[in-house]
């Protein structure tokens, strides 16, 4: 027992600073972050942590210090198998180690641990070659991280299972004169993401125990959703992606079509022909929960 009992908060702040120090507990004990709370040297560590019959105080603290990063890196490995495959275990662990220092967990759940991982990779990436028009290898890694994080969020979030989802017949039942005013209500899990690489194919190959090679750059428009509790992804054309984006932004179908015509070089006739097929696909994939029409008498007059 020390002569002057220390405050519990003081001990906790000190211990946390020590075991979370990236250079280990010995450096941690001497760090300003720890010494702010308890000014003790490594030689005097027994004033804080007592020894056992078989271990000295430093060895005992190292159990916690070693476990802190090892445990959380392991969680990140589990969540990002494709990224880990792409860069190898050692490099992945290095990124994860850096990330945990930059963004230590502030949540009670490990599901939040990787929330900023792709952002961290972007923040710390070396500058890209300004003369290179195509995305580089590092961009591929960042995109993989963003995709795998999204998979986690979609997997855990609300999905279509057990609730209503839009059926193909519901769209066909809308009278033609009201069709332009209809809006589609997306599933909360629906995500639209654009990438410079076909990262979804790479991620799927890794998850199926394959050994894929990094792909060449390729504009990739992904729609990510969930069905039967499994995260699903579908690559779509740029025009279909624009249409989905407009709908997800809350535009009625008529306005959505106008925006797509504005933003792409697709012809109206082509778009009109494609939309019917898209609706069938979207309904089967359970991208949308319902269709709503703005006229107040719509439901009663149906």
């Amino acid at each position, binding site marked *: 027992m020390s002569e002057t009992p220390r405050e519990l908060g003081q001990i906790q702040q000190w211990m946390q600073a020590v075991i979370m120090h990236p250079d280990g507990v010995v450096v941690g004990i001497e760090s300003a972050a720890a010494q702010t709370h308890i000014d003790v040297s490594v030689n005097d560590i027994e004033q804080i942590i*007592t020894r056992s019959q078989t271990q000295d105080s430093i060895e005992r603290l190292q159990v916690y210090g070693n476990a802190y990063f090892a445990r959380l890196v*392991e969680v990140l490995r589990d969540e990002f198998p494709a990224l880990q495959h792409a860069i190898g275990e050692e490099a992945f662990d290095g990124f994860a180690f850096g990330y945990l220092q930059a963004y230590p967990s502030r949540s009670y759940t490990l599901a939040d641990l990787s929330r900023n991982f792709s952002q961290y990779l972007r923040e710390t990436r070396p500058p890209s070659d300004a003369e290179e028009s195509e995305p580089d290898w590092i961009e591929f890694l960042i995109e993989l991280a963003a995709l795998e994080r999204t998979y986690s969020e979609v997997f855990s979030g609300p999905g279509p299972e057990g609730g209503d989802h839009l059926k193909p017949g519901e769209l066909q039942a809308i009278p033609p004169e009201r069709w332009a005013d209809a809006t589609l209500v997306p599933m909360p899990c629906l995500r639209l993401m654009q990438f410079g690489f076909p990262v979804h194919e790479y991620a799927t190959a890794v998850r199926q125990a394959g050994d894929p090679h990094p792909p060449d750059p390729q504009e990739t428009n992904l729609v990510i959703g969930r069905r039967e*509790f*499994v995260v699903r992804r579908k690559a779509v054309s740029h025009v279909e992606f624009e249409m989905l984006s407009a709908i997800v932004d809350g535009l009625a179908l008529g306005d959505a079509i106008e925006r797509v015509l504005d933003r792409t070089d697709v012809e109206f006739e082509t778009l009109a022909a494609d939309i019917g097929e898209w609706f069938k696909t979207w309904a089967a994939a359970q991208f949308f929960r319902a269709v709503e029409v703005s006229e107040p008498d719509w439901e009663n007059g149906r």
Partner: protein
Amino acid sequence: MLEPRLGHPNIGLGLGLRTVHYQHILQHEPKVDWFEIISENYMDTEGRPRYVLEQIAERYPIVMHGVSMSIGSTDPLDFDYLQKLKQLAATVGALWVSDHICWTGVASLNAHDLLPLPYNEATLKHTIERVRIVQDVLERSLVLENPSSYVTFADSTMSESEFVNRLAVETGCGLLLDVNNVYVSSVNHDFDPVEYLESMPHKNVVQFHLAGHTNLGTHCIDTHDGHVIDPVWELYRLAHRLTGGVSTLLEWDVKIPEFPVVHAEVLKAKQFIGAETESTESQKPGFLEKPGFSTAEDAAATITVPHPAAYVVAEAE
């Protein structure tokens, strides 16, 4: 006068519910008495784990076991977390809700580890106040587990067993007596696990935990990655006799084998609770054996990480 187990039933021999066993459980409906869930794995999800849990909860009694309450932290209690915990307990009809006598972080950080407390009057007062608040929020007795630990503090003025005992008596909380943790900590801190078990307030003990650990020669780490060793089973026999028997759960969190293997492990408990009146005295030397070095080489090959690491991996195409 306290009822045994604070009035909770003895629901028999249960298992920790783990995602790798979902399919087996739903398909075969094994004759397991009950399941314990890691609370945080089900609080925020609306995906498959929650769906499976609700199906399993229709067929088996469920108990909730958390790793993030941080009851001993000097950070403020997280009332949002507590409300979610309460809501989940109501949804799945949890028989009781447990967590650990520990802290997991301060200054808004979370180490996701079960960190030890210095055992003294100030810590006891602090923890008692927080247990009472949590019990008010949850509107039920909290059940708290003795942790495995790897350090002790110069600022401790009482033993862990005294701290746990007084915490339980003064708050009326239940105890989840982890017999493996008693063994692990007794090795790491040079105390007698038998005395520890004998000193507990036995009527507050609501549940036992059993698990495997890793023996590194100089110390043990609570890894939940293997079979329960014989000295822990002998401690379990004693704990059963002292308490009159309480609900018993096996945890297996790393290198998890097929369901029948895990199930068979917890069923071994029957051998020890059926013959609990046999002399535990003859087994006492076994309790006090120091860890050998036979497993150290294997274990030292990589960093040995103590439980917990409660993370559910996404299923994706």
